[in-house]
Structures are given as structure tokens and as C-alpha cells.
């Protein structure tokens, strides 16, 4: 039996794609390939035999910095209310006291539009 332990044939690539020009890039899955060119061919064969696709990226996994479990869990503890509109919810009541409606996100964003 042929033994190919540690063979360069088996390198992990991550596959990303966009369904249409305007959609966001989405992770599809990973695959094994000996090089980028074959990774790309296999990505097409493995994941896009039927579904519509506008763009495909393949990236060698070792070139991606991923988060560890600890790093991911640390994210959950960050309080960022000061960065978000929900941190300013109390203003609605305040404006009422001054007999004014608070400007909604749409009102604020829509200021410059005709």
C-alpha cells in the first residue's frame, strides 16, 4: 500500500464565494488540494455544480488568522453600548419632555437625500 503521510498533496484550502455581484462573500467549506490552481478547480467541482455563483476565492488555511475558542468567548464580554444606537435609547423620552420627536435613524441618514 502506498503511504503518503505528510504528503504535500494534502493541503487545506478554504473556499469562499459570492452568489451575485452585490452579495457578500460567504465561506463555503474547505477542501484538500496540492496547489492553488487545483484548489480552485476542485472548489468549482465540489461546491458549484448547480448553484449560481458570481465569484470564487480559495485561500490556503494556514494563511488565515483564525480565532481560538478563548478569543471568541472574550468577544462576548465586551460592552459596546456607547458605539451603538441602543446606548442612546433614553433620548426618546427626553425629547418628549421638550415636546419633540426624536429623529429616527432614517431621519438622520436621510438628511442629504432629495
Amino acid at each position, binding site marked *: 500500500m*502506498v503511504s503518503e503521510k505528510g504528503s504535500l498533496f494534502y493541503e487545506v484550502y478554504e473556499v469562499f464565494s459570492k452568489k451575485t455581484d452585490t452579495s457578500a462573500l460567504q465561506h463555503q467549506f474547505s477542501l484538500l488540494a496540492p496547489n492553488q490552481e487545483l484548489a480552485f478547480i476542485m472548489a468549482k467541482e465540489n461546491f458549484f455544480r448547480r448553484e449560481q455563483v458570481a465569484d470564487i476565492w480559495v485561500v490556503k488555511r494556514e494563511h488565515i488568522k483564525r480565532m481560538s475558542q478563548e478569543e471568541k468567548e472574550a468577544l462576548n464580554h465586551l460592552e459596546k453600548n456607547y458605539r451603538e444606537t441602543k446606548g442612546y435609547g433614553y433620548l426618546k423620552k427626553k425629547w418628549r419632555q421638550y415636546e419633540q420627536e426624536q429623529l429616527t435613524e432614517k431621519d438622520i441618514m436621510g438628511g442629504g437625500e432629495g
Partner: protein
Amino acid sequence: MEISTNERMDHFMNRINDGEKIEADDWMPDDYREALIRLISMHGISEIMGALPEKEWVPKAPTVYRKLAIMAKVQDEMGHGQLLLRVAEDLMEPLGKNRDDIMKDLFSGKLKFHNVFHMKAPTWGDAGVIAWLVDGAAIISQTMMLGTSYGPYGRALKRICAEEVFHAQHGESIIMSLAEGTKEQRALLQDSINRWWSSLLMFFGPRTNAETGHSNQDKNMRYKLRTKTNEQLRQEFLTKYVPRVWALGLTIPDPTLRFDAESSEWKYQQPDWEEFKKIVTGHGPKSKERLALRVQSYEMNSWVREALGTCRISKVTR
């Protein structure tokens, strides 16, 4: 700060019970990893072991349309194998193992594949029954695991299930043609159903440990790898397909088969679980031949892996 194994285990079980998904690089207990490797490598290799004999049907399929359809199905099954083996490999990586080890375990008989792929499939009727009912059974067990606690497996299954629907309909279409065909075609189809019935019942595995001496279903349920028992899945299968087989005027080779309204359960004759044990341990009617087909394909293609895998090295040294 040192975290004890107990604390890690509690945290892990809390994550699972909260419906969080475990990812490949997350901490997991050894027996969770082992259960996943066993389940997913068996599933992945079964996809490939099923595709190999199925591809033999391409030249023999009766029309160009059928040839194209079965070729597409074979390609899907190979793709499913690729997806699942990737999931298994990422779990095996910390143990210093890769795809090569999966192949070696298959060839040595350590890694099992599904009972149905050890069986004979001599006629076109069998090709239809396999696509309709074997894939139908596979859909039932795979959709049950879509919500599995292991994230990468769930994502692989989502892709797989979408394609299985096409396989089942391709099977239905073959079955419909034969059922509406000549007397000979109907007889051919009936023969196939008779031949496959006990394998279909076996597909879901034994009801309890009592039948085969061991079963992993309890542990797999606790770890939320699966949510239903073998018997629940088998009952769903019977509810879904028995009335349809009967509606086509075909019979099922079990005179005791009936739906018991009182217990809301199908009553059926148990398949021979001793035989099941023999089949899945590589002593089925086609076990050796199918494995030989796999070894042959692995060896025939080894030059490709060699040529592509070493080209980077040779460029550097020259």
C-alpha cells in the same frame, strides 16, 4: 489560571445544552472527538463506497437522460465524501492523522461502511430502489442530524441534504417508469424491493444494544450529535415509504408488516441482526469486491497524488 478538566467539561456540556455549536479548534472531551471521528469518517467513506458501484451503472443506464442523471448523482456522492472526510480530518489532526490514515483504516477493515453498500445490486430496478429508498433512508437520518452540536458536520449535512433530494427524485422517477412499465419491468422492480427490504430495515441500526451487543446511540444523544433513536428513524421511514410502495401495487416481503393504530407504531419482522453484524464487519456478499474496487481506484490514482504533491519540492531542489 489553571482550568481543571472538570470545569472544561462542565463548560462544554453547558455550551451543548445551550445549543451552541462546537468548532474544530474548540476544546472537546476525547470521547466526543472519538464519537465524531467514528460517525463522520464512516459516513464519508460510505458515500464513496456507494458511489463506486453506482458509477458502474452509467454505461448500462437505459437512456441518455438516465445516464446523465446517474452520473450527476455519482458526482454528488463523491462530493459528499469529500465534504465529510474534510470534517473528519480536521478532528483527527490533533491525533496526528490525515486522509491517508482514513484510507488505510478502510483497507484494513477497521473503518466500516454502511451495510447497504455490501449488498448485490444486479438490476436497473436495484439502481432505482437504491436511489429512492436507500437515499430516502439516508435523508431521514441526515436531516435528523442537521442540528447536531458539531458545527462543521451540521454545515456539511446542510449541503448534502439539499442534493439528496434530487437523488431521491431521480430514484422515484426510475421507480415510476418501471412500475408503469411492462409486466417484466414490474416484476424486475418487485424483485429489487424484495432483495433490499431487510437491508433497508438494517440501515438505521438496531433498536437497542440487545440486538448487536453494542450501540453508540445513547452517548450520541447525550452529546446532541443526534436527536432521535434508530427506531424512531425507522418508524419515520416506514410511515413515509410503505404506503407509497403499496400504492404502486407492489408488495413488501413481510406478511406481518402493519401499522398498529393503538401504539401508533409500525409492526414488522426484525431483520437478522446477526447477519447485520457479519455484513458491516466486511463479510457481506459484495464486501470484498467493493473494497477491491476502492483499493484499485486508490492505487491507480496514486501517481497523480505523487506527481502533484511533490512538484513544489522538485522545483525548489533543482
